[in-house]
């Protein structure tokens, strides 16, 4: 952390750097200790027979995940991905080229699981898993934000995220875990959120927020917690409760719910959208964290589950919740586990639904009024967060995950500009802090990895005077707050999409009797549906 490093300069055109071997060599992020490893079922320290354990684990993973097996075999080393990773572009360390990162894992796979690697290791670049290799794994698989940009450009769709998840799972199995992720996961699966925030603290925070909003707007926007029988259960990243600028997004969600008049709640038992189980590659831990949401939905008897602005949370929710917990639709008639929940959920709505989908739908139906001039002091651009962009959909239309957020922003704001096409949508550059890297001990790689995004942002700053960067991901927001000033930007230029919504939305007032207004609104909603 104390290591000195140069902050990359922002070029006018993004150039592919010459490789600089060893540029990001190091010990990697802080290692996890026994107190964080044990609750997750991982060995507390590096086990004695770690090589044997690691190789067995690799064998298990490749037999459980087709992605791992196929991706390890299919790479032809064409080099298409070599200039696609933001960490390589920012650091020039060749081991940050996606294929080279995968090869750390693949070379061991070849040595132990393939004919050619067993008998002709030199010929095919097969390598033994020794201490040095394990250190390289730990270091370089924690320089991957699992953003999947490489996968878009690979002729076989090889996804380094899958390999990096597998590698981290092997590392955890031998007792070499990452402190940041595993410490947070311990809180998430015992307390229910990454901050370790107990129910009373959460309730206090929300009450404060209600007071603050009422003071400011004169409208009694509510932040209900653990309300049984509410229609919507909102699952949002816990950063929304505290962090800046996240909390302004939460204020936005509340205002939208208020205007719609829908009954909603959050859960103190499952007060976390983020699921770091994905980052460490563990199906079981990811499932354990997600099952809290299932339980909350069942206990609170909600008919809709909604997700706040968080990138990987939305990936887990959209792509994995149905699999892990049954939050979704289309379970077979014999699937009691999923049917139990799916029968409770309202099939007229997508389950789970993204808050952007919800707001977008209300805008489409003319249920929200905006004073767009409230955002006239801003010129806005949108950062597609990698997990939303490359691993999910919104609105059920092709490329909806790119269209809907932009439409919401444009509905509340007059000045919108996109960054260069090769740096947005499915080609978006990661903020540099995703995938379990959002920790101060990884600041060097976070800053270097942010360079490609910062470069594209600098160009629209120059050409269109863009002064506001919108993201719908808690990690992006935190990361940008930290790295923007390093590249001569205002750290406060990063905002939630729902902060812009919040600023432009016209609230009905005075609101003397909430409950009556809600009933009336609800009746209206039903008619429209």
């Amino acid at each position, binding site marked *: 952390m104390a290591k000195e490093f140069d902050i990359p300069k922002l070029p006018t055109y993004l150039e*592919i750097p010459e490789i600089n071997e060893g540029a990001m060599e190091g010990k990697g992020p802080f290692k996890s200790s026994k107190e964080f490893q044990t609750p*997750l*079922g991982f060995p507390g320290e590096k086990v004695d027979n770690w090589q044997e354990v690691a190789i067995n*684990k690799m*064998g*298990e993973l*490749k*037999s*459980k*995940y*087709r*992605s791992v*097996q*196929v991706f390890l*075999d*299919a*790479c*032809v*080393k*064409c*080099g*298409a991905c*070599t200039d696609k990773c933001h960490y390589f572009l920012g650091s020039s360390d*060749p081991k940050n*080229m996606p294929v*080279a990162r995968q*090869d750390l894992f693949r070379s061991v796979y070849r040595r132990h699981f*393939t004919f*050619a690697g067993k008998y*002709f290791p030199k*010929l*095919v*670049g097969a390598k033994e898993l020794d201490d040095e290799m394990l250190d390289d794994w730990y270091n370089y698989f924690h320089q991957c934000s699992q953003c999947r940009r490489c*996968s*878009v*450009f690979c*002729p*076989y*769709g090889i*996804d380094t995220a899958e390999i990096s998840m597998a590698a981290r799972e092997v590392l*955890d*199995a031998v007792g070499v875990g990452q402190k940041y992720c595993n410490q947070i996961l311990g809180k998430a699966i015992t307390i229910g959120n990454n901050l370790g925030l107990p129910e009373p603290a959460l309730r206090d925070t929300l009450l404060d927020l209600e007071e603050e909003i009422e003071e400011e707007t004169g409208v009694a926007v509510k932040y209900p917690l653990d309300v049984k029988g509410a229609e919507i259960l909102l699952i949002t990243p816990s950063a929304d409760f505290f962090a800046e600028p996240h909390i302004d997004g939460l204020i936005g969600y509340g205002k939208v719910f208020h205007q719609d008049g829908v009954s909603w709640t959050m859960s103190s038992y499952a007060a976390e959208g983020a699921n770091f189980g994905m980052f460490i590659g563990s199906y079981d*831990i990811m*499932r*354990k964290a997600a*099952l809290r949401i299932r339980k909350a939905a069942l206990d609170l008897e909600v008919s809709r589950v909604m997700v706040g602005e968080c990138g990987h949370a939305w990936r887990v929710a*959209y*792509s*994995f919740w*149905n*699999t892990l917990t049954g939050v*979704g639709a289309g*379970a077979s008639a014999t699937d009691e*586990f*999923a049917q139990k929940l799916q029968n409770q959920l309202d099939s007229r709505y997508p*389950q789970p639904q993204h808050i952007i989908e919800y707001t977008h739908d209300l805008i489409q139906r003319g249920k929200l009024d905006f004073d767009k001039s409230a955002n006239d002091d801003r010129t806005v651009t949108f950062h597609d967060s990698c997990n939303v*962009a*490359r691993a999910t*959909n919104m609105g059920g239309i092709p490329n909806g995950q790119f269209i809907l957020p932009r439409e919401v922003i444009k509905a509340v704001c007059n000045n919108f500009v996109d960054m260069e096409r090769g740096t947005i949508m*499915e080609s978006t550059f990661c903020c540099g802090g995703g995938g379990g890297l959002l920790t101060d001990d990884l600041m060097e790689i976070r800053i270097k990895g942010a360079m490609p995004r910062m470069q594209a942002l600098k160009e629209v700053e120059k050409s269109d005077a863009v002064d506001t960067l919108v993201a719908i991901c808690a990690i992006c927001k935190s990361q940008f707050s930290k790295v923007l000033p390093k590249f001569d930007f205002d750290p406060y230029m990063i905002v939630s999409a729902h902060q812009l919504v919040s600023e432009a939305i016209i609230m009905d007032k005075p609101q003397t009797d909430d409950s009556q207004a809600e009933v009336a609104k609800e009746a209206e909603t039903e008619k429209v549906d």
Partner: protein
Amino acid sequence: MSVVSIFFTALFYISLAIFLIGMTRKIYQYWMTPVPLKIPTAPTPLTQTGVVMRLAREVVLFESLFKSNKWTWLFGWLFHVGLLLVLIRHARYFWPGDLPEIFLLIQPFKYAAFAMVIGLFGLLGRRFFVERIRYISAPSDYLMLLLLLVIGVSGVVMTFTSNHTDVIMVKEFASGLIVFNWADLPTEVHFLVHIFMVFVLMAIFPISKLLHVPGVFFSPTRNQVDDARKKRHISPWALKQEQEHAIKLDQTLGQDSEGK
């Protein structure tokens, strides 16, 4: 039959057996390995038809590679298309008896050999001269291109220079392999080198990166429908765990189920 003919005849069947058994095993392995999660990469198809179209574009046009790098795409596509056309043209050697008229149509495919060879030189050049690709190349990556180049160039030499080989003999040998009516083969060195390398290529197919051929069809990021919210997707092992109410946090030390 001469010793050389017997050697090459035997080598053909051995290589073919390795190829067929090896590929069957790998494809079976890919087929049987579960896909526990939905992981399609954007831009994702929302329907099964969309997936078929996506894979077709990927296999025929190399869509993702085109997005990624135009030079690699150009050389890679030239090589693959050239190889495909040349391969189709080789059917005439293996066809027992008189050729149907349709084979006249594939006669011009011989020029595709140039596309193949140009593509291979391009790919080899990139591997030598582009620093990043040189960094990721193992000796086998160069050798694979050299192997294909030897095959391509020896083929070109036989077809387009005065070093023709006895095509009638080739046909008798090749079709004889198919109908088990073995015959002598021509013994010009360039012909022997040509078929030797082809047989080697067949044999190493299932144990090398040539597995990208079946791999592309099994790649979950490319072959999955993006419908996770609409349809519950669950793998057999995960379903079993779910039914047993098991979250196996304490059993992280795994075994290779393949080996059992």
